[in-house]
């Protein structure tokens, strides 16, 4: 398989680390090799957060993605600005449309701008925007199905709060279904 | 109007400590916009009531606020 090098990035509270973890869980459950590496430390304070998820058939070489990002979720503009230069030519970028306004005109990869905040607002729960993003991102990875995604959400988040899980899944499905 | 408050808006982190400190309740966060550092900044919605007590500036952790008093 072609190595997936996915970065999920945004503001501190946007839940981008969780999105990455969900993808990592999916990969693990498919017996793929996977690593999830977060940004950490005080520079995250009120600032940006991101994580690197690398998926490979047998073994993940570097858990850090220095370049050649294949999938990028950019939940805000700084996230896009920071990681765009490190993307592969054929990268798929999912953006949080209301907060990512400037995409360079010469960008050659695939761009999927969706207003996740809007989806969340529609569901009356701002927290679930990241689940919508997870849905949209997952759809760009054909090895995983919609059902895989729902299972992962239940596995990772299900126990804590059942009613929220339902909302999460709803948001996920809306993100997954959304055409850019 | 006995006082005037000025916000160095792009340093504001939207913590709202000034909002709570103002005895005449004329400060709020501007939820309609996001400043350069990503926060809803504080602003004064009714300067006429300001008594230049400096409470807001005293509580602001990010030295956003300047307070002037009307010379009488």
């Amino acid at each position, binding site marked *: 398989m072609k190595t997936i090098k996915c970065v999920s990035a945004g503001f501190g509270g946007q839940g981008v680390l969780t999105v990455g973890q969900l993808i990592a869980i999916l990969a693990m459950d498919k017996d793929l090799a996977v690593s999830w590496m977060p940004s950490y430390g005080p520079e995250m*304070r*009120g600032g940006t957060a991101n994580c690197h998820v690398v998926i490979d058939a047998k073994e993940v070489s570097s858990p850090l993605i220095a370049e050649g990002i294949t999938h990028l979720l950019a939940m805000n503009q700084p996230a896009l600005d920071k990681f765009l230069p490190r993307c592969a030519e054929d990268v798929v970028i999912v953006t949080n449309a209301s907060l990512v306004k400037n995409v360079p005109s010469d960008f050659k990869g695939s761009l999927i701008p969706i207003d996740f905040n809007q989806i969340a607002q529609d569901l009356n729960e701002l927290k679930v925007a990241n689940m919508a993003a997870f849905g949209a991102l997952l759809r760009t990875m054909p090895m995983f199905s919609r059902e895989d995604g729902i299972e992962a959400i239940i596995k990772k988040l299900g126990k804590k709060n059942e009613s929220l899980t339902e909302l999460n899944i709803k948001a996920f499905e809306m993100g997954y279904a959304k055409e850019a | 109007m006995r006082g005037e408050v000025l916000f160095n808006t792009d*340093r504001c982190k939207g*913590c709202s*400590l000034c909002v709570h400190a103002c005895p005449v309740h004329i400060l709020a966060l501007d939820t309609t916009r996001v400043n350069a550092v990503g926060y809803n900044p504080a602003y004064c919605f009714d300067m006429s009531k300001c008594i230049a007590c400096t409470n807001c500036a005293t*509580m602001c*952790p990010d*030295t956003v*606020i300047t307070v002037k*008093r009307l010379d009488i």
Partner: protein
Amino acid sequence: MTVVFKKTKGLTDAPFSYCPGCTHGIIHRLVAECLEELDLLDHSVAIASVGCSVMSYEYFNCDAIQAAHGRAPAVATGVKRVHPEKIVFTYQGDGDLASIGTAEIVQAAHRGENITVIFVNNAIYGMTGGQMAPTTLPNQVTTTSPRGRDVSKTGEPIKMSELMATIPGATYIERVMTADPLSVRKAKRAIKKAFQYQKENKGFSMIEVLSSCNIGWGLSPNDALQYIKNEMASYFPLGVYKDKGV
């Protein structure tokens, strides 16, 4: 119109790296204002410690030295002993001063070093993600007291001002807080007096400032101020614990 409040020259223009609503920022400003008002900026050395305030060497508008975790009083001693005429102060958190740096703070006071210590007690290790500090309140939840601080296993919180006041070499010890405009103004008076004492060669002073860590406490910035006033200040009573300078 007269400007009655503006940003002090005692601070550089670098924006603080603190979380929104963190009162480290207020305390920085108070220190800086005192230095400016006492005209000390041009001949002071700030000793930054390791904690959320580690970058304070970028904020105080004077010379600065970044010290190892807990060792700021030793570093300050080194500076002050070679430049007794300069103003030397440390800025330390509760992990830094009341845990790893216990020996250094106690012994600097013991020697009667003529320095000023700003001790920011926020009852937690902010920088490293909210672990328990020696000053964490009973039953307070932190990342290393996930079921709340259990005093039967970790003891009751240490009271540094009370402890430091027993040291014969210490001159001035006061505990203040940053819970509202009034207490912030009082805090400033204490800090100013401490610097004044140093100027007058009166010896060691420490101002303990009860401060918030809304992130670590899991509270809104304003609720965190209420927590200072209601919870912290009732376990850590405010007041002057020692004043040999009067």
